[in-house]
C-alpha cells in the first residue's frame, strides 16, 4: 500500500507541475471543493475589504427503532456555528469557525486560518484548517447537504470534521474555460493515540482527534495530507491522502514503542448530469496496529457513499421565487476490519450498510428543510444476524 500512497502523492504533485498555464478565472468551471469554505453566503455578499460575521445552524427530530426497540421521538439542535471572516488585504484573508454542538455540550474551534494569496496558483495557508482528505471534510456545512446525517465513510474512516493545526499551500490552475486543476498540500500535527484502544472497541480513526493536538503534537512527527482535483463545467474529481504517525512512541525522548502510522487514501467525485446530481467519496485506510490486538482493532478499513439528488420541482412556491424540492437517495457502506480470524479463517465482518431516502425543500438556496428515512444493517465482527435500525428524521439547516 505504500506504493499506492506514493502514487497518489506523485499524481498530486504532477498535476501541480503540469498545470503551468496561467489563465483567468471563469465561472464556467465548477467551484473547487477546497474553496468551499469561502463559498459561504456571508462572505460572498460583502465588499472585498471588509469583515463579516456569519454562520449556520441545524436541528432535526429523530425517531429511530433498533430491532423493534425505540427510544421514541426526540429533537436535537446539532450545530450552531459562527464564522468570522476578514479580508485583511487584497491577497490576505482570515477565516475562523467556532462550533457549538448540542447547545454548549461541545464547543470547538474548527477553523482559524490565514491565507496569503501570492497568486491564484499559490496560496500559503497556516493555522487551524480543514484537512484536504476527501470532498466532504472541506465542504461539510449542513445547509449544502440534502440528508440530515453525515455519511459514515466521511465521519468514521475520514474523521470529518477533521481540523488540524499546521501550514501548507494550495492553488488552482485554470487550463481552459471549462477545465481547472487544484492542489493542496499541508503539514500538520496529526492524529493521536485514540485510534486504537478506545471506547469504541475497534480501530476508530475519529478517536485519534484531540484538542491537545492544536497545542502540541503527541510524537513530534508531522502528518502529511494532500489533494488534487480536476474541475469541469459541472463536475469535480479528486484524489487525496493523509499519512502520519499516531502513537506516542517516545516518552521524555526515550522510545517506548514502534512508530505506528495511519494512512488514508480517498477518491471523491461530484457531477451534474442533466438535472441529476451524483456525488460521493470512497476511502481506504491502513493503520499500523500491534499484532497481538489486530483481530479486535482492524488494520485496514474502507467505506464509500453515493448520493443521487434529483429536483422534483423548481420555481415559485408559496412566498419563494426560486424554491426547489429535491428527492435524494444515499447508499453507504463501511467495513471497519477487512481481516480474517486466525483461528477460524472467517472474514471479520464489523460492517455497516445504510440506505437513505428523502426529500429536501429549499425555499432559498441557503436554507433547507429535510425529511429522511434511514435504514441501517449493522453486523458485528463475528457475523451474527444484523442489527436492524430504521428511523425517520425531519430537520432544517440554514446559513445566516
Amino acid at each position, binding site marked *: 500500500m505504500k506504493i499506492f500512497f506514493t502514487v497518489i502523492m506523485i499524481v498530486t504533485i504532477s498535476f501541480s507541475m503540469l498545470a503551468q498555464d496561467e489563465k483567468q478565472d471563469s465561472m464556467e468551471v465548477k467551484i473547487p471543493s477546497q474553496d468551499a469554505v469561502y463559498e459561504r453566503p456571508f462572505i460572498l455578499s460583502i465588499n472585498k475589504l471588509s469583515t463579516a460575521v456569519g454562520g449556520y445552524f441545524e436541528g432535526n427530530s429523530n*425517531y429511530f*427503532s*433498533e*430491532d*423493534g*426497540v*425505540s427510544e421514541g421521538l426526540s429533537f436535537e439542535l446539532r450545530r450552531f456555528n459562527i464564522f468570522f471572516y476578514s479580508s485583511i488585504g487584497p491577497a490576505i484573508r482570515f477565516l475562523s469557525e467556532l462550533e457549538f454542538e448540542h447547545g454548549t455540550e461541545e464547543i470547538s474551534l474548527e477553523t482559524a486560518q490565514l491565507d496569503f494569496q501570492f497568486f491564484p496558483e499559490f496560496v500559503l495557508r497556516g493555522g487551524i484548517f480543514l484537512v484536504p482528505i476527501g470532498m466532504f471534510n472541506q465542504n461539510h456545512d449542513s445547509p449544502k447537504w440534502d440528508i440530515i446525517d453525515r455519511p459514515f465513510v466521511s465521519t468514521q474512516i475520514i474523521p470529518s470534521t477533521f481540523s488540524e493545526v499546521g501550514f501548507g499551500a494550495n492553488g488552482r490552475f485554470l487550463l481552459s474555460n471549462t477545465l481547472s486543476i487544484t492542489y493542496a498540500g499541508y503539514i500538520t500535527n496529526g492524529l493521536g*493515540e*485514540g485510534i*486504537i*484502544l*478506545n*471506547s*469504541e*472497541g475497534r480501530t476508530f480513526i475519529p478517536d485519534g482527534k484531540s484538542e491537545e493536538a492544536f497545542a502540541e503534537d503527541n510524537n513530534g512527527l508531522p502528518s502529511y495530507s494532500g489533494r488534487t482535483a480536476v474541475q469541469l463545467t459541472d463536475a469535480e474529481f479528486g484524489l487525496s491522502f493523509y499519512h502520519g504517525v499516531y*502513537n506516542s*512512541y517516545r516518552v521524555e525522548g526515550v522510545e*517506548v*514503542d*514502534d512508530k*505506528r502510522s495511519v494512512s488514508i487514501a480517498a477518491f471523491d467525485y461530484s457531477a451534474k448530469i442533466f438535472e441529476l446530481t451524483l456525488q460521493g467519496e470512497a476511502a481506504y485506510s491502513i493503520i499500523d496496529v*500491534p499484532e*497481538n*490486538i489486530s*483481530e*479486535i482493532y482492524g488494520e485496514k478499513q474502507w467505506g464509500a457513499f453515493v448520493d443521487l439528488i434529483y429536483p422534483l420541482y423548481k420555481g*415559485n*412556491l*408559496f412566498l419563494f421565487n426560486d424554491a426547489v*424540492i429535491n428527492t435524494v437517495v444515499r447508499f453507504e457502506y463501511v467495513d471497519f476490519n477487512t481481516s480474517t*480470524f*486466525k*483461528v*477460524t479463517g*472467517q472474514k471479520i*465482518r464489523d460492517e455497516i450498510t445504510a440506505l437513505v431516502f428523502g*426529500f429536501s425543500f429549499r425555499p432559498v438556496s441557503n436554507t433547507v428543510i429535510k*425529511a429522511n*428515512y434511514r*435504514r441501517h444493517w449493522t453486523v*458485528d465482527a*463475528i*457475523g*451474527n*444476524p444484523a442489527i*436492524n*435500525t*430504521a*428511523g*425517520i428524521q*425531519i430537520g432544517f439547516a440554514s446559513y445566516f
Partner: protein
Amino acid sequence: MKIFTNLFNEFRLSNKFLFIISLSLLISFLIISCEEFMPSAPSSDEVLNEPIEGLTPAQLAAHLQGDGEFGKIFSKADGLGPIFVNTSCENCHIADGKGHPFIQLQRFGKMNPDGTFDPLLEYGGRQLQQRSLSGYPPEVIPVEATGKTTLMPPSVTGLGLLAAVPDATILSLTDPDDINGDGISGAQNYISPPDYFEPVPGFHIENNGKYIGRFGRKAGAITLLQQVTQAYLNDIGITTDFLPDDLFNPVVGPGTGDEVTDPELSASIVKSVEFYIRTLKQPPRRNENDADILAGKLIFDQINCSGCHIPTLVTGTSEIEALNQKEFYPYTDLLLHDMGSELDDYYTEGTATTSEWRTTPLWGLGLASNSQGERTFFLHDGRAESIEVAISFHGGEASQSRNEFNNLSESDRAKLLKFLESL
C-alpha cells in the same frame, strides 16, 4: 355560489394548493412510516438478552443499569489492561450468548510430582493475557507449564437461577462412589473463597474453609460476584474494589501496570453487573410440544444423558421474587464429571482432576449460532462444530451414553438432536 367556485378555482391553481397537498402527503407518509417502516423485534424465544419475568420496576431499572455496564467498552484511558483478553464483558458474551473461538481464554499450570497443581502465579498464571496496550508486552505461556486449556466464553443467561440453587441441592446430586451403578459419579469442586466472599447461612455449606464452586468450566467460582470480579481483572485488566491490584506480567516484572489509578472500578459497578447477570432470563424453549422433540426427550432420558445433564433444578429462597423457589430446566447438575482422556487438558482448578469438567447447562444450545456468527462451536474450547461432534468427544463417565447415541437409528438420532436444538 359563484364566489365559492371562483375561490376554489383560484386556490386550486395556486402554489399554495400544491404546497399544502404535497406537505400533507409527506407528513402522512412520515406518520405512517413511523409505524410501518420500523424494524420489528426478533421473537422473544430467539433472543437471550432479556430480563427474567417478574422483576419489580426498581429491579428492572437496576437490571438495565447493569446492562449498560456489561456493554461498556474499556479504553486505555479507562484502565484497560495493560494486559488483557478483551475490552468488555459483552465482547466475549455477545448478546449474552456463547462466545466465538477468536476470543478464547487460555489458562495454564504445572502438575507437581505430588499430584498438586501449581497455577504458576509467578509466571503470570493461571490465565494468559495474550493482548496488551501498545508498547507493553503481552504475556506468554511459560515453558514450565505442563497443562494448558483453551476456554470459550459461555452464555451468561439464566445464571441467576443457577446461583440460587442451595449447596445442599448440589450435594444431594453427588454420587462419588457410584452407588447407583450407572457409571456416573459426580463430585463437587471445593474452592478456597476470596477475601470478599460472604457466605450466606443456610445456603452455602463450608468444608474445611472451602466452599462449593459452581461457575466456570471447572466450577472454579463460588459466586457470581467472584466470577464477575475475576473476569474484570483477568479478562479486561480492570482492577476493582475487590481485586485492586493490576495483573502481574512476568515479561515486565513486578510493580508495573497501566496509567490509571487503581482500583479502576467501584464495588457498586461490579455489583451492578452481577445483578444484571443474576436477573437475565433462562434461555427460552422452542417447539417443546412438537412430537419429535418429545420423542427426542425420551431418548435423552433412555440413554442416560440426563444422568449428568439433569433437566430440573429448584432455587432456594431469594430476595428477588422472580428467583425465589422456582423450578427451572438448565440440564446440568453443576457437578464435576470425568470426561475421559480426549477432553483432558492437564489443567485444573480447585479439587477437580484434570479430566473433570463441570456439566455444561444445555439450555440455549439451539440458540448458539445467534451469538457465534451463524455457526456453532461447542465444548469448552469450541472444537466441536456440531452437537454430534460434541457428543463424540464425551468419554469417561459419559462413554456409555455416547456409545448408545452412536447406536441409535438415524430416526432416533434425528429426534434427539431436534430435542437438543429446542433447548
